[in-house]
């Protein structure tokens, strides 16, 4: 006669593995950005964790030859120097631009030892990197350009990030903003670019300084930089997640 058990061995192994998996997953998901119960954002969170867990975080994005450089469309939310661009217009920016950005400076705030303002000259003294990389837009197009700028990691090190710091938010004069985690902030190719294709950053490409995050989709690379805020907690300054977009765009 067959013995009646509450659970046979196969069932026990299966149940054990599933519960262990569920525990692991719920633990991991705490490291992912909030989902607000949206299944699409859960998928984005899974992609974020998988790409952080399975890919090399120091691997460099493909760098190209000068002959690979292509034309570069500007498809952003508007011109911060133009009063006709309702949502993107900034009077401060217009004034800075009319003076050729002589009075411009980048403000670094939040979880850093020495918060303060960095002029372009001060930033350029921190470091320099030139890279010919591909900008990949979520719309589907891509463009290759040569960028020169200051590695964001070096700027953050100079400002002295505090031990609890985990995210970096970057705000543009056009009221656009994005945040990235420390892994992308310290990626060697993540730079604050001041030069594009050998000339100082053209107006509509984000003058005087823009972010380049080469391991993510184009919309993370904030233009017209105004300030950088280092935070311990997750912030989503552009409301990507509640606005229906993925915060992490490694794909």
């Amino acid at each position, binding site marked *: 006669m067959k013995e009646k058990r509450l659970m046979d061995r196969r069932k026990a192994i299966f149940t054990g593995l599933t519960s262990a998996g569920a525990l692991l997953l719920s633990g991991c998901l705490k490291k992912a950005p909030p989902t607000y119960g949206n*299944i*699409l*954002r*859960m*998928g*984005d969170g*899974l*992609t974020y964790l998988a*790409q952080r867990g399975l*890919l*090399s975080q120091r*691997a*460099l*994005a*493909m760098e*190209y030859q000068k*002959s*690979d*450089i*292509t*034309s*570069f*469309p*500007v*498809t952003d939310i508007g*011109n911060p120097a133009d009063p006709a661009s309702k949502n993107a217009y900034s009077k401060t920016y217009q004034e800075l631009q009319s003076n050729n950005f002589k009075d411009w400076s980048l403000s670094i705030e939040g979880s850093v030892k020495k918060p303060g303002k960095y002029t372009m000259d001060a930033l350029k003294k921190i470091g320099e990197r030139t890279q010919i990389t*591909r900008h*990949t*837009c*979520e*719309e*589907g*197009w*891509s*463009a*290759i350009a040569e960028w020169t700028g200051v590695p964001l990691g070096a700027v953050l090190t100079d400002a002295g990030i505090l031990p609890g710091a985990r995210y970096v938010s970057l705000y543009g004069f056009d009221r656009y903003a994005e945040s990235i985690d420390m892994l992308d902030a310290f990626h060697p190719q993540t730079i604050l670019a001041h030069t*594009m*294709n*050998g*000339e100082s950053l*053209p107006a*509509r*490409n984000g003058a005087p300084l823009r972010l380049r995050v*080469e*391991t*993510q*989709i184009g919309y993370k690379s904030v233009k017209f930089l105004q300030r950088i805020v280092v935070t311990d907690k997750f912030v989503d300054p552009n409301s990507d997640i509640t*606005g*229906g*977009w*993925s915060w992490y765009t*490694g*794909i």
Partner: protein
Amino acid sequence: MSASQRQETEGYGHRRWVKSTHFIITLSFLVLTVSGYVILMSHPRLYWGKAGNDLTPALFELPVSRNYHHGGWEKSVPFKNLTGKQVSAVRTYDIFNENGWGRSTHFLGAWFLVATGLVYLIAGFFSGHFRYKLAPKKGEFNFKALWADFRSHFRKKTYYPGKYGVLQKFSYLFVIFFLFPIVILTGFTMSPAITASYPILLKIFFGHQSARTIHFFSSVLLVLFLVVHVIMITVAGFRRNLRAITFGK
């Protein structure tokens, strides 16, 4: 269920793991097709090479959204330190763009497809499903057999109880071991983070935009396969085949 009906299904029901993986993969494929189309609508231009955009020549354009034959652009400005003809220009019109949910839905569908696809591959190898049901038998792997099977499709003699026909085997193998891997890998090739770790993908598929174009054509072939698949099922007995892949014993 009457006796004759029972007889009809008996022996032809697929194995349980085949049914469940087939169900999840079918659903994810439909989700991926719809969301992929939505993504394509926001930039219905395809290119060949490392990069491509509205200011560079396209391979072809598809008339699938108002973004087709892109609208207005400001006067283009050349990059003065480049020797080529590269320019920058500002887009002046509002495009159709539903990629917020389109992209995330696509990647969610892709997660289900890849995870279930892996289960299917592992189960298929270890259960002997591939060896006994899908691999062509001796004498099937020649032009004569293929031609005979092809001709038989027009004489309504396409029903092989309990086993697959030669053409059927080849089309399944082509989809499982060629089209799906290609469509997944070209999808990876469009990811900036994945290609940073695996730059070889960009070499295999000739660059980011070539990968996008190959992704498009392989998904078109997969949709064509779906259409033919459903037609063949209908011809061979829609109700019986549907029972066999869902609840049939």
